[in-house]
C-alpha cells in the first residue's frame, strides 16, 4: 500500500523535474512570427470600450477597435482613421466627418456613420452608466441626455447624414475635440453583435468574449485566459491591414512589477507596463538599450485639505510646498528622469507652459511663512497625517518628504498608508490632512489638468474654491483663440499655485523596459503606441559605433 504511494510520488516528482531543458524563449522566436509579448498590469475588467476605464483595458481595446480619428505616434496630432477626412466649421463648433469606404468590422460589415450614432447613444445612455460618459459632454446636449433630462437622442448633436457622413455639433469650440475621438470611450461598437448578446444599454454581456467580439481595429480577439494571457491576432478585414506587420500580440496581466521585470529579463516579454524603482539604475548602467524613459503627461502631487486647521492657512500650505527638495526626490528616489514639478500642468503640454515662479524650493522663506502663520520653528504645529495608498514607491517618497519637513520646518507628520479603496473614500470625503495623488492627462491639453480644481469639481477633493479661478476656466472653455485661451489657463494656474491647495512634486516620466527588437514604438506624452506601426526586428549587431 505505502510502497505504491511512494512509487506514485516518485513518478510525479520525475514529471515535475523533467522539463529542465528550456526551449527557446518568447523573444527568440518572436521576430520570425512577429509575435509581440507585452506586460499589461492588471487583468482587464472587460473589453467593452464604453464601460471600462483603465490603462490595461486601453492597451487591448486599441488593438481591437479604432475611432474616427487616431493620433500620430510621435506628434500626437490627429490622423485620419475610420474618418478619412473632416471639415470644421468657422465657429469651430461643427465637425463633419467623412468615413472611409473600406472601413470594415472584423466580420466584413462596413463601418457606418449610423454605427457611431448608435454607439454614442449607447455610451451616453444613463442606463449603461459609463464612467467615461463625460468625454462626450463637449457634444451638444450630450450631458443633458446622459443625466436623463430628456430621452430623445435626436436632440444630441450627432447625426448621420448618410452612411458615410457624420455631423457632430459641439457646445463650445473645443480645440482638443479631435483628440477625444482617439479615446476608446468614443469608439463605435458593432450594433448587431451587442444586440446578439443583450440589450444595447446592457453592460457585462458576453459579447466581449473571444469568438463573439467584433471590432474594427487592426487585431481580433483570439483567446482570453483569465488573469493569464490575452491573445489577439491580425485582422484581415482591417482597412489598413497591409501596414500592420505584427501577426499576434499577447497581453500578460502581471500584478507585481518585480515579476514583470524577471519575465522581461528572461525573454518572456518585449515590454513591461512598469519598472521596479531599484532596477532603473541597474538597467541604465548595464542595459541602456533595454530601458526607455519618456516624458509622460502626468503629475505626482499631494492634496492638502484646506478645510481644516492648520492647512486652511495659505502660508502653511506654501511653506510645506516650498520646503520640499524635489530634485533630491527625483534624483535619489524615483530615479527615472522625472522632472521636479513646481506647477500642476506638465511643461510643454501641447505648447503650454505654466508660470513657474510662484513656488520655488526655498527653505528660509518657508520657515518665515510658517513663523508668520504662528508656528515659529514649527512650535505648536499639530501633528498632521500624510495619507497614501499602499505602495512601496509612494511610501519611499512620503518617508523622504516627512524627513524634509522635519528638518526644514521642524514639524511632525505621521505617515498613514491605506488600502486603495479606503484611501479613495477618505480623500473623497475630505477625511484627510495631506494625501498623495496623481493625475494623468486624458488628452494633451492643459484643460485636463486645470479643469479639476474648479469649485466642487469632482476631482478637486481639497475643499479649495476660488471664484476667479472658476471664471478663468470658463473663459478658456469658451475661447476659440488658442493663444488667449492659454493665457487664461496661465492666470488660473498662477492662482492655483499661489494658494497651493496642492503640492506638485514631479512630472511623470514613462519608464519601461523595452526590448531592442521592438520597433515603431514611439515615445509620446500619452504613452499611446498604435500597434499598426509596431513591428519586431532583431537589432543589427555591431552597427553602433
Amino acid at each position, binding site marked *: 500500500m*505505502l*510502497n505504491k504511494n511512494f512509487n506514485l*510520488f516518485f513518478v*510525479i*516528482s520525475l514529471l*515535475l*523535474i*523533467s*522539463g*529542465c*531543458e*528550456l*526551449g527557446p524563449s518568447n523573444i527568440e522566436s518572436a521576430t520570425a512570427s512577429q509575435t509581440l509579448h507585452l506586460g499589461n498590469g492588471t*487583468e482587464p*475588467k*472587460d*473589453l*467593452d470600450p464604453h*464601460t471600462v*476605464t483603465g490603462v490595461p483595458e486601453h492597451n487591448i481595446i486599441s488593438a481591437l477597435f479604432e475611432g474616427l480619428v487616431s493620433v500620430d505616434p510621435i506628434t500626437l496630432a490627429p490622423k485620419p482613421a475610420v474618418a478619412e477626412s473632416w471639415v470644421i466649421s468657422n465657429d469651430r463648433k461643427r465637425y463633419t466627418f467623412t468615413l472611409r469606404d473600406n472601413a470594415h468590422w472584423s466580420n466584413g460589415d462596413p463601418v457606418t456613420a449610423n454605427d457611431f450614432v448608435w454607439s454614442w447613444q449607447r455610451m451616453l445612455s*444613463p*442606463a449603461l*452608466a*459609463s*464612467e467615461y*460618459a*463625460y468625454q462626450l459632454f463637449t457634444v451638444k446636449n450630450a450631458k443633458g441626455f*446622459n*443625466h*436623463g433630462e430628456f430621452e430623445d437622442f435626436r436632440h444630441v448633436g450627432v447625426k448621420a447624414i448618410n452612411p458615410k457622413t457624420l455631423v457632430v455639433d459641439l457646445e463650445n469650440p473645443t480645440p482638443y475635440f479631435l483628440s477625444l475621438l482617439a479615446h476608446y470611450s468614443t469608439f463605435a461598437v458593432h450594433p448587431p453583435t451587442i444586440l446578439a448578446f443583450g440589450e444595447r444599454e446592457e*453592460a*457585462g*454581456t*458576453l459579447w*466581449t468574449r473571444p469568438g463573439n467580439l467584433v471590432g474594427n481595429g487592426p487585431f481580433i480577439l483570439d483567446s482570453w*485566459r*483569465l*488573469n*493569464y494571457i490575452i491573445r489577439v491576432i491580425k485582422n484581415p478585414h482591417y482597412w489598413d491591414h497591409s501596414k500592420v506587420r505584427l501577426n499576434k500580440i499577447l497581453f500578460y496581466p*502581471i*500584478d*507585481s512589477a*518585480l*515579476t514583470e521585470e*524577471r*519575465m522581461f*529579463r*528572461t525573454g*518572456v516579454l518585449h515590454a513591461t507596463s512598469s519598472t521596479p524603482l531599484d532596477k532603473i539604475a541597474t538597467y541604465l548602467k548595464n542595459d541602456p538599450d533595454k530601458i526607455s524613459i519618456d516624458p509622460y503627461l502626468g503629475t505626482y502631487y499631494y492634496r492638502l485639505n484646506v478645510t481644516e486647521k492648520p492647512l486652511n492657512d495659505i502660508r502653511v500650505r506654501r511653506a510645506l510646498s516650498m520646503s520640499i527638495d524635489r530634485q533630491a526626490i527625483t534624483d535619489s528616489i524615483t530615479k527615472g528622469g522625472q522632472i521636479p514639478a513646481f506647477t500642476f500642468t506638465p511643461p510643454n503640454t501641447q505648447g503650454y507652459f505654466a508660470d513657474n515662479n510662484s513656488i520655488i524650493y526655498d527653505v528660509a522663506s518657508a520657515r518665515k511663512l510658517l513663523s508668520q502663520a504662528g508656528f515659529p520653528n514649527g512650535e505648536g504645529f499639530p501633528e498632521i497625517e500624510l495619507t497614501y495608498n499602499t505602495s512601496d514607491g509612494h511610501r519611499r517618497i512620503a518617508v523622504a518628504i516627512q524627513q524634509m519637513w522635519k528638518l526644514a520646518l521642524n514639524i511632525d507628520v505621521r505617515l498613514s498608508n491605506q*488600502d*486603495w*479603496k*479606503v*484611501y*479613495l*473614500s477618505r480623500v*473623497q470625503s475630505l477625511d484627510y490632512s495631506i494625501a498623495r495623488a496623481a493625475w494623468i492627462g486624458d488628452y494633451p491639453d492643459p484643460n485636463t489638468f486645470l479643469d479639476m480644481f474648479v469649485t466642487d469639481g*469632482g*476631482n478637486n*477633493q481639497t475643499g479649495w474654491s476660488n471664484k476667479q479661478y472658476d471664471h478663468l476656466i470658463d473663459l478658456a472653455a469658451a475661447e476659440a483663440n488658442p493663444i488667449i485661451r492659454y493665457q487664461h489657463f496661465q492666470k488660473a494656474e498662477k492662482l492655483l499655485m499661489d494658494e497651493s491647495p496642492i503640492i506638485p512634486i514631479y512630472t511623470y516620466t514613462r519608464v519601461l523596459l523595452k526590448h531592442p527588437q521592438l520597433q515603431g514604438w514611439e515615445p509620446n506624452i500619452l504613452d499611446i503606441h498604435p500597434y499598426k506601426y509596431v513591428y519586431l526586428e532583431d537589432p543589427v549587431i555591431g552597427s553602433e559605433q
Partner: protein
Amino acid sequence: MIRFFLSRLLQAIPVIFIVITATFFLIRSAPGGPFDADKVVSQEVIERLNERYNLDAPLHQQYFDYLHHLVRGDFGPSFRYTNRSVTEMIAAGLPITFELAIYAIMIALIVGIAAGMLAAVKPNSAQDYIPMSLAMTGICMPSFLLGPLLVLVFGIWLQWLPVSGWGYSPGDKVLPAITLGSTYAAYIARLTRGGMLEVLNQDYIRTAKAKGLSTFNIIVKHALRGGLAPVVAFLGPAIAGLLAGSFVVETIFQIPGLGRFYVQAAFNRDYTMIMGTTILLSCLIVFLNMVSDLLAVWLNPRLTLNAKN
C-alpha cells in the same frame, strides 16, 4: 460512516451559514465601494451601477436576495470583471490553485517525511541535526523570500527553469511547487520526527524487530503509519491554509490561480467574488477537517468515527 457524514454535514450548515452572514455584512461595512475609482465617478453613475448590482436595496434585502440566489447555486456576477460570473472565475482559477497545492503538498510530504524519518532514526546525531536545521531554515524562510531567491538562482543565473507561467512552458510548475511546499515540508519534518520518535519507542516495534525485519521494513511497514498521525492532523488545516496562502506564490510566478482572486477581490471590494471565494474556502475547511478525521481513522484502526469530533 453514514452517521458520521450526516452529523458532519449538519454541523457544516451552521458553520457555513455564519461565515456567509458575517462575511456579507463585514465586507459591506468596509469603507470604499466596488465602483470607487481614481478619477471620480459621478454620483449618477454610481447610483445606476448600484441599481444594476442591487446595491441600492436595503441591506437586509440584499442579504436575503443573495441567499435566495445562493441556494439556487448562483454566486452572481463579479462586480469588477463585469462580463464574468463568480462561478466562472472560480472554475477558471480553482483547478490551477488545486494542482499547485497538490504538487506542493506532495513535495512537502516527500521531503518532510523523509527528513523527519532520517532524523528520528538516529536522534541527536548529524543525521538528526542537519535535516532539522534545514527544516528550521525552511520555517524562517517565507515564500515571498524563497520564491524570488529560487527564481534568481534557477531561472536567471542558471537558466534551468522558467520564471513564470503555469503550463505555458515545460518545467514552469517546478519552482512554484517547491516555493509553496517548502515551508510545509519544514513543518512536516518536525512533526514526523516527533511522531516517529514516539512510535519507535513502542513495544510493537520491538516485536517487529524480533520477527527479523530490517530497519527499513520496520520503519515503512510498522512505524510510519503511527508516526504520521500528527502529520495527518496537521494536513487538514494546512491544505486549507495552503490554498489561501498560494496568493504569494501565484503573484511571484504569474500563475492564474484562485489565490490571486481571493486577495484581489478584497482589495477591489468585489463583493460577490469575496463571498464566492470565502464560501468555497469555508466548505474546503469543513471538508478537509472531515477528510483529516477520516484519514486519521484509516491510519489508526483503533479510532472510530465519532460524530462529535
